């Protein structure tokens, strides 16, 4: 009895396990029909594998794509994110520190007043010049409170200022429309 074609196919691929392998080999010794069959199969196999695309054509962009990936994941990926992370942390931290300094500075005036003595505690060099003898109060007689809004606007207008006034919570109509679009 001749060899099953499927077995022959597996034999051709070197995937046939013992003891079948030896049996097939023994059979092939004396059976020319099976030998022919195997030869045909081998020829077909070579023909099929010959249809593979040539490697040099397929790998034309190999290095290019690798460099792209390398850049994306191994170079920029790591370094940029490292820098970005530093920036993300350091900028707000710096801002917070600056804000804290300003807050304490202003807070000092707010809570302790601005008498020359206490100013001297906070700003010694300024306090020397700014005590009662050389500071003149200019807004004692008439403050802004003693003028109406119209008067102030009229005054500013007469001085050549262009003043825009908006009301809190209200948007100019054109702007609201353009934002809706």
């Amino acid at each position, binding site marked *: 009895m001749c060899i099953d*074609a*499927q077995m022959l*196919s*597996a034999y051709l*691929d*070197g*995937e046939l396990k013992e003891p079948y392998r030896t049996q097939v080999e023994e059979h092939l010794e004396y059976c020319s029909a099976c030998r022919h069959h195997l030869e*045909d*199969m081998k020829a*077909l*196999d070579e*023909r*099929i*594998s*010959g*249809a*593979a*695309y*040539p*490697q040099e*054509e*397929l*790998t034309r*962009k*190999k290095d290019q*794509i*690798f460099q*792209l*990936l*390398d850049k*994306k*994941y*191994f170079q920029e990926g790591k370094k940029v994110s490292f820098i970005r992370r530093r920036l993300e942390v350091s900028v707000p931290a710096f801002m917070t520190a600056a804000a804290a300094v300003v807050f304490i500075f202003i807070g000092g005036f707010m809570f302790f007043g601005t008498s020359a003595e206490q100013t001297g505690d906070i700003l010694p060099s300024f306090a020397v010049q700014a005590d009662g003898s050389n500071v003149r109060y200019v807004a004692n007689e008439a403050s802004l409170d003693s003028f109406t809004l119209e008067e102030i606007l009229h005054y500013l207008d007469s001085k050549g200022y262009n003043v825009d006034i908006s009301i809190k919570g209200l948007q100019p109509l054109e702007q609201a429309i353009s934002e809706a679009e």
Partner: protein
Amino acid sequence: MEIKSTDRDDFRRVYDANYGLLVQVVMHIVYNLEIAEDLTQEAFERFYVKNMTFPSEDDARYWLLHVAKNLALNHIRRNKREIEMVEKVKRMPSVAIDSRDGAKEAIEAENREEVRKAIAALPENLRLVIQLKEFSGLDYKSISKVLGISETNVKVRVFRARKKLEEALSMEERDVY
């Protein structure tokens, strides 16, 4: 040796060892070199992004082949080109990819086209198996891992694919002569 997909040296090694293989396999599914290159790149990106560890280089290869194959099949399905695939291969520029062939190799080039056409006409389950077998040089065990089927199943499908190809190719010869 263990492979970590986000390790640069490991990545490089796996890339070098498998790039050509992946393009080859994908190419036989999509029949367009640019698309094949894109999908191969995508497969490697996923390989990195998934940040996985493989027990060996072979396992990384199986994973990559599996992913690349699925990407290619999805691409085909999305683009609904499967029906006209045979036509596509026919139209596909043997010029573009085989242009380096001289006149001497014209017959070989023609043979290649015929075989590709015959393979493209196979049902998908047979096509993938025979492609992995013939073009990737994988053994039955590797193919079974890539496709997630049993080794016996691989053996049967390789045989059936060969049988069909034999019929298709000898029929063509009869047509010609």
